[in-house]
Structure formats: C-alpha cells, structure tokens
C-alpha cells in the first residue's frame, strides 16, 4: 500500500486535514464579524479560493513557457492540469463571492473591475481548454495552447492589482492589521490547505494527461491475428 501512495497523495491528505481544522476554527472558534455577522465566515473559503486560483494560473504561465522552451510533453500535461484546477477554483470563487455580495453589498453581481476581471480570467482559460480540444495534432496543440495560456495570463495580475489601481465595489486586500487576530489563523490554515489540495489535483490531472499524450504517440497496436483454419 505504502509504495502505491505517491508524494502527491500525502500532500493532498495533509491539505484535507488542514482544511477540516481551518474550517472548524473558522466556523466555531473565530468570532462573527461586528457588522456582517456570520456571513463573513465565507471569507475562509473565498480568499483561499482566490489565492490558490491565482497561484494555479501563475504556475500555468511557467509551465506554458517551459512547454514551448523544452518541447517536453510533461510541461504540456502540467499546464493542462493547472488550467483545469484553476478554472474550478475560479468558478467556486465567483459563486462564493456572489453569495457574500448579496448579503453585504445587496447585489448578486455588478460590473466592478474585480468581478469583471475574475470572470474574464475564467472565460479566457476555459477558452484555452476549448482550443486544446480542437487541435488534433499533438505538437501543434502543445504550441498553440501554451501561447494562448501565456496571453490569457495577462489578466491574472490584473485580478490581483485592479482594486489598488482603479476604483471598485470590491474591497482591497486585507492585511493582518485590518483583520481581527482570531480570524487570521483559520484564513491562513485554509489558504495553505487549498494550495496543497490544488497541488494534489494538478499532480493527479497531469499524470492522467501525460499518459494520454504518450498513448497518442504509441503506434497502433497490431490487430489480433485470427487463426484461419
């Protein structure tokens, strides 16, 4: 059993253990927010979703450059895993944010710069995945999906910095000074946990993708000879 458990499974199990602890502390130990009450506890998954999604897409950028530079299938597979996990996290981010927004801002959605750039990030990387599925030939697919991913990455720093550069409905980043100290611990625990789970998911997904890419290259198996009598 032990030799079957690869390193990434330990990372994932550690992440799951920490997310249970972080969420428990967030729900039952940390105080409710002075004005927002209990709904603010959605922060303990919303902010970690955002951080890990942005880190996923930053990894995608690195993997895309490495894929073009080395022409190795491994990087193409990592890039694909990163995009898929990043898209799931961004979709979660938008849903959590919308629920929180309805309770505090009074609206489900507004075309604020933070919300818009986040939605654009999801659409751009879904676009890269769509492009990937349209190209049959492996080398061309690796090349063009990497280029598309590098261009799509432009939006990622915008998601982070837009609230500092432009006016928005969304608040700017918090810091330990603007957050009650008892709220910082569950936030940090869940941030680490989400990151570990994202690494786990990317590793699993990249292995599957690499096996698929290698199978594409393998020669067609010989048809089984049927003995004629």
């Amino acid at each position, binding site marked *: 059993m032990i030799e079957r458990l690869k390193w990434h499974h330990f990372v994932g199990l550690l992440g799951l253990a920490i997310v249970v602890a972080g969420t428990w502390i967030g729900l039952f130990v940390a105080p409710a*927010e*002075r004005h927002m009450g209990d709904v603010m506890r959605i922060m303990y998954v919303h902010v970690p979703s955002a951080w890990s999604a942005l880190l996923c897409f930053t990894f995608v950028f690195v993997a895309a450059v490495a894929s073009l*530079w080395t022409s190795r299938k491994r990087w193409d597979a990592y890039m694909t895993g990163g995009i898929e996990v990043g898209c799931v996290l961004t979709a979660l981010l938008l849903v959590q944010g919308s629920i929180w927004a309805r309770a505090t801002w009074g609206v489900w959605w507004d075309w604020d*710069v933070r919300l818009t750039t986040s939605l654009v990030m999801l659409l751009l990387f879904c676009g890269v995945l769509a492009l990937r599925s349209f190209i049959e030939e492996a080398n061309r697919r690796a090349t063009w999906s990497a*280029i598309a991913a590098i261009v799509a990455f432009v939006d990622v720093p*915008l998601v982070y910095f837009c609230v*500092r550069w*432009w006016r928005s409905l969304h608040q700017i980043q918090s810091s330990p000074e603007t957050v*009650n100290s008892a709220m910082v611990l569950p936030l940090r625990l869940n941030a680490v946990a989400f990151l570990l789970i994202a690494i786990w998911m990317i590793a699993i997904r990249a292995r599957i993708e690499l096996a698929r890419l290698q199978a594409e290259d393998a020669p067609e198996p010989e048809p089984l000879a049927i003995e004629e009598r």
Partner: protein
Amino acid sequence: MSNESRSRKVLAIVAVLIAGGALTFLAMGGIGENLVYYWSPSELKEAGEGARGATVRLGGLVAPGSIERGDDGLALRFAVTDGTETVAVTASTVPPAMFREGIGVVLEGELAGDGTFHTERLMVKHDNEYRAPEEEDGRSMEDLVKSLQLENG
C-alpha cells in the same frame, strides 16, 4: 537543434513579450481615467450640468445623521459625502442590512434638476476591515473616506 524547437522558443519569447506589453499598457496606459467605476460627490458636482440626465454611479460615505425613512417605509433619504462635498440622495429601494451611517455606498442613478441624486440600485461598499463584535471602531471620518480609495483612478 531542430528548426521546429527553435521556432517554438521564438514563439515563447514573442508570447511573453506580447503578454508583458499588454499588461504594461493596461497598468500604465491611463485606462482608469476613461473608465471610472463611480464618481465621488466632488466629481459629480464638478461635472454639474454634464452629469444631468445620464445614469451614473455615485460613491461615497453615508453622512452621519442624514438617514431619514418615510412613514411608508419605502422612501429613503440620506446624504453621501467624500469629506469635501455632499450630495442629497433619494432612494426607492430597500437598502441592504449593512446600510448605516458612515458606511461606503455605490449608487446607480441620475442627478435630478434640483441637485438631488435619485437611485434605484443601492450597493454597500464594505472596506477591508473585519472586526469582532466587542471591538470599537475608533476610525474618524477621514479614515473612513480613505477606505473608499478615491485616489485610485
């Protein structure tokens, strides 16, 4: 080195340069000056006649002591301030539970002829402070105005 892997390296460099150029343009290109999410009360007053009749967003703090609710529970009057200028607001919408004096709001609506701003979409702009119920909010009006990030483009 094969031709194909060389051209792929060139593509990598070109793609990174395009991405970097696009990001620099967006960050430094002054897009914020043409694309303002909301106007402060000072900017709305400065625009004067130019702001009339168009749907705009007004952002600021709910001025302390300015909230008046009508007898029917529907009409809501308050004032929005940025510490310098103040605009009177009438709202025909139910405000979110977070609505109170001193909180940031972003209002979508129109400036009427008499200088009051009428809104049907009232959004609360929460800042990045998260506090426990027993903590006092010792911030002054200036601190709260700062939390609006009006200096952002």
